[in-house]
Structures are given as C-alpha cells and as structure tokens.
C-alpha cells in the first residue's frame, strides 16, 4: 500500500519530541484539585503549563487536540482520551476554561497559530488536521487558522465525553454533540462556587446590619440574629435554589425569576419560622431584591444568556432595586422615629 510508508516518515522527530506524556487516568490529587476548584478554593490557580502533551504513544497519523490551560478543562480532555494515542496542544488562556477564554479571545486564532508554531506540531504529524473544541469557536476563526498555519480546524464535540463517538464518526459532530445543554446536574455542580462567591461581601454586610439593628436601632440581639438568618437564607436561595429551579420559575428574565423566588422564600420563611404571613416589611422588600440580584448574577454562569439581554435586564431592574431599598430604608426610619 502506497501510503503506508507515511507512518515511518517522521519517526525521528516523534522520538525526539519533547511532548510531555500524560496519563488518561486522573489521580487523587487531580480529583481533589477539581473538588477544591468547585468550592472556589484556588480555582484561579488551577493551571497546567501551555505546550505539547501526548497520551499513549502517538505517531504522525495521530490526531491533535487543542485545549486551554485551565486544569479542569485539560483533565476532562485527557480522561476522555483513554486508549487513544493523541497529541494535545495546551494554549495559554491564563487558567481560564475554553468557552470563557474563547469569549475573551485568549483562546483565539492568534494564540492557536502561535502555539502551532511553538510546538512544531507540523513536524510531528503527516496530516493537516487539528481538533478544536466547538466551544472554542467564539475565539477561533477556522479559515484564518488555515490561512496562517495551513492546518484545517475540525470542530470537535461540546462535551469531551463524546470524543470517541466523534472519532468513530470520521471527525464529524452530530447535532446532539453540537448542542450546549444546561441540565439539572450541570446547574447543580455550579452551586458551590456560586454560594462561596456570594459570601465575599458578607462580613461587610453583617457589620452594617449590626450597626443598623443594635447601634442605631437600639434593638436586642434577637432582631440581629433574625436578620442574619434571613440574609443567609436569601444567599442560599439566590445561589443554590435559583440554579436548581431555573427552568420551572416563570418568565424569561433572570432578575424577575429571582424576585419571584425571593418572594416565595420570604413568605414561606415567615409562615414556617416566624408564624406570620407578612412578617417584617423590611424583609419583604429587601430579601426578594437580594435573591433577584444573585439570580441576575447567575447569567454569567448560565449557558444561554446574551449580552444584549443582560444589559436590558439591568436597565429594567436597577430602578426597581433602588426603589425597594429606598422603601426599606423609609420603613426603617418610620419605625425608628
């Protein structure tokens, strides 16, 4: 067969290649690292070094996969390359995942072309294909990459778990492989990060609450504890319940969905914990606003919101937020005098 010789065409460079061999099995360290990142512990420093890697013993005919240097992205890719001899080029995306980095352009045409050059991947292979994850497409222009590097971009599946099917399907993605989902488990897994991030302003808020309740208001500790309870319940509602309940909450606007969830939260809490429907007017005004804001903030973690939409939501909700907070302060002042 004529083209069989190609397998031995570049053995030297492949043997001498400085590609770093990686396992397709994740170690305990990899897994605890991923768990920590989900809880936002060292998430911004969960990186791998950009460069050329390999799984198994790739030869010049092996496929080339492109990844970002967020360790979670890289780990998920290599885990799904079990039993596959492949090259992996890790781009420098400052430790950000493929999709977010593509949106910013750091996972982009320029960086890809630079790394194609730097890793001298073209000396390692005798074909012209590279597999870029489809979620990298907002940063990559396939025809530009072709023009600048001579290599053809094949867009791979959204989920690395479809890679084997994609390879079997002659590097074609099916409609299902192309589609981004936002399933219950995909939303649930985001909630620890959301909750931990929302705690950032809590110390400041608690000090403020203490000042208003105890120092200015002259109330007992009981009022302060009640407010703290309502506050953390609102944080939990906005960062955990909201992502979980997203599809069943009415309306399309995240801020509005969140406000409704906030109202449900405060009314049920008043009924169950404090035995009264309206409870405290200030809680009724402010807790739904906090839940609404946290829900609106979740647009950044969702997979289907647009910039134009997020801007429109801000324009509509800011005046309402302001009005509610002002009313809350007014009630507070009326009670005080």
């Amino acid at each position, binding site marked *: 067969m004529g083209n069989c010789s190609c397998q031995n065409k570049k053995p030297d460079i492949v043997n001498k290649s400085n590609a770093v061999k990686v396992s397709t099995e994740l170690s305990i360290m990899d897994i605890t690292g991923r768990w920590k990142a989900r809880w936002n512990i060292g998430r911004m420093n969960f990186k791998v070094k950009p460069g050329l890697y390999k799984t198994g013993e790739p030869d010049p005919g092996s496929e080339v996969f492109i990844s970002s240097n967020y360790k979670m992205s890289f780990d998920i890719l290599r885990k799904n390359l079990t039993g596959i001899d492949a090259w992996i080029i890790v781009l420098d995306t400052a430790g950000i995942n493929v999709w977010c*980095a593509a*949106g910013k352009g750091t996972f982009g045409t320029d960086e890809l072309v630079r790394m194609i050059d730097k890793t001298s991947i073209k000396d390692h292979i005798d074909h012209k294909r590279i597999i870029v994850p489809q979620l990298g497409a907002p940063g990559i222009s396939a025809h530009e990459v072709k023009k600048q590097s001579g290599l053809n971009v094949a867009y791979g599946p959204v989920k690395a778990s479809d890679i084997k099917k994609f390879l079997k399907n002659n590097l074609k993605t099916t409609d299902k492989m192309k589609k981004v989902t936002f399933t219950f488990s995909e939303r649930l897994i985001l909630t620890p990060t959301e909750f931990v*991030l929302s705690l950032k302003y809590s110390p400041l808020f608690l000090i403020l609450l203490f000042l208003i309740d105890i120092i200015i208001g002259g109330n007992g500790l009981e009022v302060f504890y009640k407010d703290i309870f309502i506050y953390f319940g609102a944080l939990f509602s906005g960062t955990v319940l909201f992502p979980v309940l997203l599809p069943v909450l009415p309306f*399309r606007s995240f801020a509005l969905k969140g406000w409704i969830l906030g109202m449900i939260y405060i009314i049920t809490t008043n009924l169950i914990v404090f035995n009264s429907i309206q409870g405290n007017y200030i809680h009724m005004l402010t807790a739904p606003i906090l839940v609404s804001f946290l829900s609106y903030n979740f647009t*950044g973690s969702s997979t289907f*919101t647009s910039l*134009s*939409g997020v*801007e*429109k939501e801000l324009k509509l909700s800011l005046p309402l937020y302001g009005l509610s907070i002002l009313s809350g302060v007014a009630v507070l002042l009326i009670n005080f005098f």
Partner: protein
Amino acid sequence: MKYLKNIAQLKLDSDKCTGCGMCVEVCPHAVFIIDNKKAIITDRDLCMECGACQLNCPFNALDVRKGVGCASAVIKGKLTGSEPSCGCSATSNCC
C-alpha cells in the same frame, strides 16, 4: 431554555451566504439550518451572541453583536465605562 424575546442582535445576509454550513457547525444553540443551499435563522431567541458564527463565516454573511451574557461583566463595564468584558484573569474571579 430561552432567554429574553427579540433581543439578540444577529443578522444574516442571505446574498453573501453560500450555504457552506460553518455556522451550523459552530453554533452551540442550533440557531441555523441550511435549506436550499442557504443558511436560515430558525429562532433568534436562542442566540446568545457568542459570535462564533460570525468569526467562522468565510463569506462575512453574519453580523452579531458579540459579547458575554454575564451580569458582573456588564456591571463592571458600566462602572468603569469600558466595554463589558468578563473579568476572568489569573487574579480575579469570574466564570
């Protein structure tokens, strides 16, 4: 799940479209189909303005207002008077 109605800014110039299918290939929300050798927008409300189709259209037939649908990016953009950009970097928290 769909986001707000009639808000996504996505335009397709059918005269320039050759029906190559790259937009279908890169769109994460199946906004396009190819019918009679031309791309068609099936449902604009599905578009999240990621910009992948525009960047990968070899014939400049697509125009998207590319950006991140991220509240903290939009708020940060308004406060600093810059373009909304997700603050993802090695030192700050985002997505």
